[in-house]
């Protein structure tokens, strides 16, 4: 790994050089992995955080000053994403409780309403999704219904990852509005 090339590669990427950008991201991924591992993120989550750091690098690549060293820039982004991951994790852990052994006596059994719900809620959601604009519909279908990864969805749809994230965000906001409209 010749990281003395990185400033030049990233500067060329800022000018739209795809090959330089691919090489920069590929070579810097290992560096990001090492930084994230050093923050104490569990081994099975390191790759998730590295991918989030790569997406952030893509979104804010214009903030890199080619005359300055690239490592502090990369390190700050990787550490920020590690902190965000830990915060999300803490938030999830705070709202989750261990399921007690007698859960079946405590909580309602969702299956008991299966016959009543069948074909209703699923049909309603499909109807709402069909009403969405084409870009938003495609993003929801690929990312939420087919559960594809962002990279897979981007490769299949030809849209950028950022565009897919934005479309999904807007689609969910629209679905929420439709749900509120129908339930009030």
């Amino acid at each position, binding site marked *: 790994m010749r990281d003395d090339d990185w400033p030049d590669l990233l500067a060329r990427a800022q000018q739209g050089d795809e090959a330089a950008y691919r090489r920069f991201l590929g070579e810097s991924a290992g560096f990001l992995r090492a930084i994230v591992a050093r923050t104490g993120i569990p081994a099975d989550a390191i790759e998730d955080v590295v991918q989030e750091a790569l997406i952030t690098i893509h979104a804010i690549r214009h903030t890199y000053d080619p005359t300055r060293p690239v490592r502090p820039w990369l390190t*700050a982004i990787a550490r920020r994403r590690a902190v965000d991951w830990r915060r999300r994790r803490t938030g999830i852990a705070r709202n989750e409780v261990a399921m007690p052994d007698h859960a079946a006596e405590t909580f309602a059994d969702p299956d008991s309403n299966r016959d009543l719900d069948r074909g209703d809620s699923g049909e309603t959601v499909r109807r709402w999704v069909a009403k969405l604009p084409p870009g938003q519909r495609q993003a929801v279908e690929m990312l939420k219904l087919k559960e594809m990864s962002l990279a897979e969805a981007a490769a299949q749809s030809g849209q950028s990852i950022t565009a897919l994230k934005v479309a999904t965000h807007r689609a969910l906001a629209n679905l929420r509005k439709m749900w509120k409209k129908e339930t009030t």
Partner: protein
Amino acid sequence: MTTRETENLIGALSADVRPVKPLAGPVSRALRYLAFAGPCLLAIALYYGPSEMFLARVNQPVFMVPWLASVLTGVLATIAVFHLSVPGAPRWIYLLPIPPLAVWLGTLGAGCLGELVAHGFSHIGTSWHCVMVILQTSIPLGLVLGWMLRKAAPLAPVATGAWAALAVAAFASATLETFHSLDTATMILLWHGTAVAAVAAIGAVTGKTALRLPV
């Protein structure tokens, strides 16, 4: 997720690369902001003043030292936030506005203590006008500063928001003093200090949302 997925992601990101204009350096962007804010504040100061009390105090270090320190706090906090808005800024940048801020509050605090010993609490009154002017001046200056900072990527939005608000509030306080001088250091510390702290707190709260990363 696996390394294979990371490779796929790198492929997708590379394929999405488009030319981007690199952001100008932090000092250059700070100077651009100061070139906008400076004339605005000077126009306000000239429109309303300067007051006779301010002109009479120009030779009194007890008032001029904290006034100059407040201006310097604004300048250094502005330079600090433009550094903080780019990933990889050294940590000491956070401390840049601290020395003039300490001089500003310290000299006012010392003056305040002397006044309290000499006169007790008899000279303390209210000056909501100061709070309102500092808030009203800080908001438009803060919006422009926030707009410029959003073009970058502050990784610590709360601290960046607080420091940005401190910068504009320090400028607003210094400008206000030129045409609406309060009688005593206690009053300045109480009303200007409270208003500046309130603006910095608002900056920290709004910075969390307004300056967060785009992804």
